């Protein structure tokens, strides 16, 4: 694909035809189409998605100085609209439109592409919602005329449940969960927690080790008084004292037990067909006496649902490491892969993102799961398969 795609009549007709078929498939299941504005206030993307998305977002300034952007995806504006509308949940929303991404270092990837997708917001039955969206992605692809694809599934909740079951300080749990999907970085983090050298903060905590809670607090407050003139950086004194007090309480366990490290590493190394991976995880958790019943049962249900859709289990793979490189996913994740003239190509993906709506202004956490389909890639895969 060129950086600035031009669609001729056959191409745009084929893309529109696919989109209509997919939207119709979604409408039949109760999804209402919405079309957010192409030009968006930059803040909601930059504040929610962070610099990784910003690096790939086209931003511009309007004549009054307001920072705007071309939407890098449709999920965030759709969810923002769903929250702002005040409509009752659950909401089922579909969309089809252009998204825009700067492609640094990859001049041959398109800077704009069509995305069709669906968001299921506020459904309390989480397992049912995940199966609904995954099935919808499969059926939408089939409606668009693509039948040859593999699935890749993962579940960030599996790793989360494993870490929750471990006897480690709360801050480490949070840190491990935040980073488990970053290959390389995570291993370094694990190594640092297991063997790492002491930092200034740890030495400070070490010196508090023998003190009672009241004495520790007094010592920390004393240190804070010495830097009272420095800028606070929007953090309150209490926020800082609390974090240190928590760490001081954990100071006794400043190193991660190598046995725990081994369990984590073994889990992350599991990959293969989803069926065999499930067996391996069961074995591992049994040996380590850790209960992961709920996420394992959910995975089992999803596999049955795929079988019911007529998908060959051999074409469903699982990798414990598989979490999408998109920061808002929080649980189940999946991708659909096919083949075009240039090789393997991801045609669709999706998953659960339970924290996004609250971050966009909802007054409570709202269950959310969605999928997005890359329309041009679907067309390329159909052409390669001889179906278009």
């Amino acid at each position, binding site marked *: 694909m060129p950086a600035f795609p031009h669609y001729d009549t056959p191409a745009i007709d084929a893309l529109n035809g696919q989109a209509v078929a997919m939207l119709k498939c979604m409408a039949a299941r109760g999804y209402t189409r919405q079309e957010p504005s192409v030009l968006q206030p930059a803040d909601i993307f930059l504040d929610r998605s*962070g*610099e990784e998305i*910003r690096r790939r977002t086209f931003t511009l300034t309007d004549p009054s100085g307001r920072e705007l952007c071309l939407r890098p995806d449709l999920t965030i504006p759709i969810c923002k609209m769903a929250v702002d509308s005040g409509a009752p949940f659950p909401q089922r929303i579909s969309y089809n439109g252009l998204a825009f991404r700067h492609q640094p270092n990859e001049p041959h990837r398109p800077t704009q592409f069509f995305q069709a997708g669906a968001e299921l917001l506020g459904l309390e039955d989480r397992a049912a919602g995940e199966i609904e969206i995954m099935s919808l992605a499969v059926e939408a692809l089939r409606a668009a005329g693509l039948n040859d694809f593999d699935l890749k599934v993962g579940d960030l909740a599996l790793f989360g449940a494993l870490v929750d079951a471990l006897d480690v300080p709360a801050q480490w749990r949070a840190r491990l969960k935040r980073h488990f999907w970053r290959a390389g*970085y995570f291993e370094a983090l694990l190594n640092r927690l297991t063997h790492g050298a002491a*930092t200034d903060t740890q030495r400070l905590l070490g010196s508090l080790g023998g003190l009672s809670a009241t004495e520790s607090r007094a010592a920390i407050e004393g240190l804070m008084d010495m830097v009272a003139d420095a800028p606070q*950086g929007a953090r309150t004194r209490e926020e800082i004292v609390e*974090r240190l007090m928590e760490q001081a309480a954990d100071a006794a366990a400043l190193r991660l037990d190598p046995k725990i490290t081994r369990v984590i590493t073994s889990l992350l190394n599991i990959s293969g067909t989803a069926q065999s991976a499930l067996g391996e995880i069961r074995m591992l958790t049994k040996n380590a006496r850790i209960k992961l019943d709920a996420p394992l049962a959910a995975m089992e249900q999803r596999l049955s649902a795929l079988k019911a859709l007529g998908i060959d289990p051999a074409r469903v793979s699982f990798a414990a490491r598989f979490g999408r490189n998109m920061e808002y996913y929080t649980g189940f994740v999946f991708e659909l892969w096919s083949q075009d003239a240039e090789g393997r190509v991801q045609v669709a993906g999706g998953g659960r993102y339970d924290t996004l709506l609250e971050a966009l202004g909802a007054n409570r956490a709202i269950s959310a799961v969605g999928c997005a389909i890359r329309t041009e890639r679907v067309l390329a895969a159909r052409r390669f398969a001889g179906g278009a």
Partner: protein
Amino acid sequence: MAPLTLAVPSKGRLQEQVQEYFADAGAGLKQSAGARGYRATLIGLADIEVMLLSASEIATSLISGDVHLGVTGEDLLREQAPELAGRIHLIKPLGFGFANVAVAVPQYWIDVSTMADLDDVCAAFAQKHRRRLRIATKYLQLTRSFFAHMGISDYRIVESAGATEGAPAAGTAEAIVDITTTGATLAANGLKTLEDGTILESQAQLAASLTADWDAPARAAAEALLARLGARERAKTSQILRVRLDQHADKILAALAKEAGASVLSRPTDPTGEYAILCPRQKLMDAIASLRKQGCDAPATTQDADYVFDTANPLYASLAAVLR
């Protein structure tokens, strides 16, 4: 227009240091008449036109290929061209203009001393304050790639035009990424660096643009300049050792090369004459010890040189290798 353009800083301490550096190699800057101080030539190198620009303009001009060579801070080059390969060739670090690009947070944050702490705080901050922690900087690219490398994603950058160190006190950002030399400016603003928060140890670099038009006359001019700079550098870091060697000369020279990195400059024409041996200044005493160990008891004298020209021109050779 001369075949080769060289951009050097037009103001500040860096300007003085760069001009001293060229003058020391016998290529002092001579202002061109009527150019209002924006153009100059190098004494003895007529094929080079010197342009005086700001340090950041030099980085831009090198990346766009508007100048062939330039001297500027490595921080500016790496910020403007995150991937130097294919665009910029760093010919030589010049040993001045040292500055670190580093992450700094309020001293008030006594619970933060590493990037891992900052990561925890960023995540907690996003949850508690419902917005991302802001980092003020003019180094957007360096900050993004370093934070990504360190696994931090819950933050956002606030672009800063100047006086970045004042942003946390002004309340426009919580932390910063900026250059620091002694840390005094940071401390004066109530900020501190992190143990593993140094993004780049920068210094002034003599750099070549790989996208400039490198025709034969430009290459010849660069070769002449780099021969001169290389010869001066070699002269400053070496001494010439003069000594008479007996019939075991080859064995002694081999030992000198191995133990002191010394090489032969010239051999005597008659057997009683002295060898001239080039020896790294810091290895001189090793060379003397090696001579004596090999049984050479002839008197040895040393000499400084202004230049050591060799048939090899390593600075140019490495540039020529990457020029298309």
